[in-house]
């Protein structure tokens, strides 16, 4: 029997360190092609022979190989891409797509959690409040950011800044990228669960548009704590899950090394999540993943954000809030992507059951 309270296990994931030059295990062929190109270039310059035609052929082959690999990624491989050490992080998006970013720090209560960065800036021509989870690049940054695992003060800071944005009618853009909320003694003492719960409740009724984009890891409640809005988009090779594949494997398979099977079963890829209705859009990544072309992926995210904010601004506030509520209320009612994969009209079934239930109920006298 699994231990109570592990069903949303929030273990921060290990950083997968690719063995050489940032290639993942399943990219060996690409690594070989890159080596060959490098070798030919070297030969070309030392011997003065023109290998450019051969190099072009190898590069075409490399692109074809990347396309082949990345169009058939397993769920577990996708998780590895989402955790790639070179994957663009919040700081890249802040640098490349948010103009004039002014960080606003502190939760006004306990401290300033560096794993959640908040502040004002412009995306396109739109003023926005950015709320983003940050993992850090250097070892020092990673430690400062707690490897992207927020504590309660991070969630409280996020909410305080969102309320600030609401007051001045500034739309909110959140960047989701966390292995999960931090499971620590201090986090429990300061009410990790309460902080997340309050964010979920308050975000459902904040009176400005909220756009969320999962750029890497959507780790359970820790990710959800800044994801409740009008639109939730996801990068093609990001993942979003109720529990880490390792945690799920440890509990249901009783063996953490079965993470690949767990990842498959959890349906955590962008394709599956679009079908399940958790996300509204998939933002395509460059050939070979976001880490192979940071500018390209940031540009795609910017385009999506600008367009979506423009759409949402046209919607009346009451409709916006009603749609936001319906989006979350209806999750899981429209489709079943199980073995049969056939959509089932669950809503109608619920209505029917509700009707039966209400006719069954008989008034009972009160006893004092």
């Amino acid at each position: 029997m699994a231990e109570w309270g592990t069903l949303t296990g929030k273990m921060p994931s290990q950083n997968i360190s690719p063995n050489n030059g940032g290639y993942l295990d399943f990219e060996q062929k690409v690594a070989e092609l890159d080596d060959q190109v490098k070798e030919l270039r070297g030969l070309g310059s030392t011997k003065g022979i023109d290998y450019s035609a051969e190099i072009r052929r190898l590069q075409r082959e490399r692109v074809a190989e990347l396309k082949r690999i990345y169009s058939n990624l397993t769920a577990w491989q996708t998780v590895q891409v989402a955790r790639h050490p070179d994957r663009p992080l919040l700081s890249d998006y802040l640098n490349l797509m948010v103009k004039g970013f002014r960080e606003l720090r502190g939760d006004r209560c306990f401290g300033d959690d560096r794993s959640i960065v908040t502040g004002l800036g412009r995306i396109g021509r739109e003023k926005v409040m950015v709320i983003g989870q940050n993992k850090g690049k250097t070892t020092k940054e990673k430690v400062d950011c707690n490897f992207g695992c927020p504590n309660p003060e991070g969630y409280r800071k996020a909410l305080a800044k969102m309320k600030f944005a609401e007051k001045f009618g500034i739309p909110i853009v959140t960047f989701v990228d966390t292995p999960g909320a931090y499971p620590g003694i201090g986090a429990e003492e300061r009410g990790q669960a309460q902080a997340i719960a309050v964010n979920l409740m308050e975000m459902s009724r904040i009176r400005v548009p909220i756009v969320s984009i999962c750029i890497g890891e959507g780790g359970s409640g820790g990710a959800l704590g800044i994801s409740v809005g009008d639109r939730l988009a996801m990068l093609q090779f990001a993942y979003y899950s109720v529990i880490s594949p390792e945690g799920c494997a440890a509990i249901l398979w009783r063996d953490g090394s079965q993470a690949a099977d767990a990842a498959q079963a959890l349906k955590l890829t962008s394709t599956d999540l679009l079908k399940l209705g958790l996300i509204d859009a998939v933002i395509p990544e460059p050939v070979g993943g976001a880490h192979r072309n940071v500018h390209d992926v940031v540009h795609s995210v910017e385009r999506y954000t600008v367009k979506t904010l423009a759409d949402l601004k046209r919607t009346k506030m009451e409709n916006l809030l009603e749609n936001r509520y319906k989006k979350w209320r209806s999750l899981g009612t429209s489709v079943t992507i199980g073995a049969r994969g056939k959509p089932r009209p669950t809503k109608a079934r619920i209505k029917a059951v509700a009707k039966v239930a209400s006719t069954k109920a008989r008034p009972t006298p009160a006893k004092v």
Partner: protein
Amino acid sequence: MRCPACEHMLYKRTVEKNLTVCPECTHHFRIGAATRISYLVDDGSFQQILEDLTASDPLGFKFRGTTYKQRIKDDEKKSGSKEAMQIGKAFIKGRGVVLGVMEPNFLMGSMGYVVGEKLCAAVDKAIEESLPLVVVSCSGGARMHEGVVSLGQMAKTSAALAKFDEARGLFISVLTDPTTGGVTASFAMLGDITIAEPGALIGFAGPRTIAETIKVELPEGFQTAEFMLEHGFVDMIVHRKDLRSEIARLIDYCQK
């Protein structure tokens, strides 16, 4: 039977007569939803809503040679309950309430689509009939067999409670052993008044997860009801025998 807290040997019947609380040390044993309801409401006053709503296996979840569907069947037999929560209208010392009670013997009281939907239906009912909402939580958290559908129930139930808040409804959240994970991080922590049973495990991450992450022994009494009281996350700890009268009194205070 032996009390896990004080290790006294006890007669099952003595314990049951005592609201399934150890007469020696007041250890509150875990109880199923039906028992809980019988302890809490006026005799025969519970009218269940959405009793037949059953889980739909949105992912077609398979694991270790078995399936989520099979697990549901097994736990239906084990618990006599079709899901991990029962909701309905009831009276507590004559006060009308909408009541939700979680069932720990059905997939560890975890929250999937049905639990989320029932919680929201309970909120809708409470708004419609201007009744207080009382929810007794007992849960291992989100139900991973339903993937993000279960995760989304956290947002959904919290959003429903925002509506209830705007309708100025009274939500009394009762936390029992254990209340953890996605249930704590959503509706269970959003009570206008939060009550806990003595000694209950209440927290976000499971103690084992925390111990494995930080590699430090956890302090005594960590994540108990008393710990939550000390850190300001529950209003009061109430003995099972006083729960009815305490809830009734609080309802009276909040009546318009």
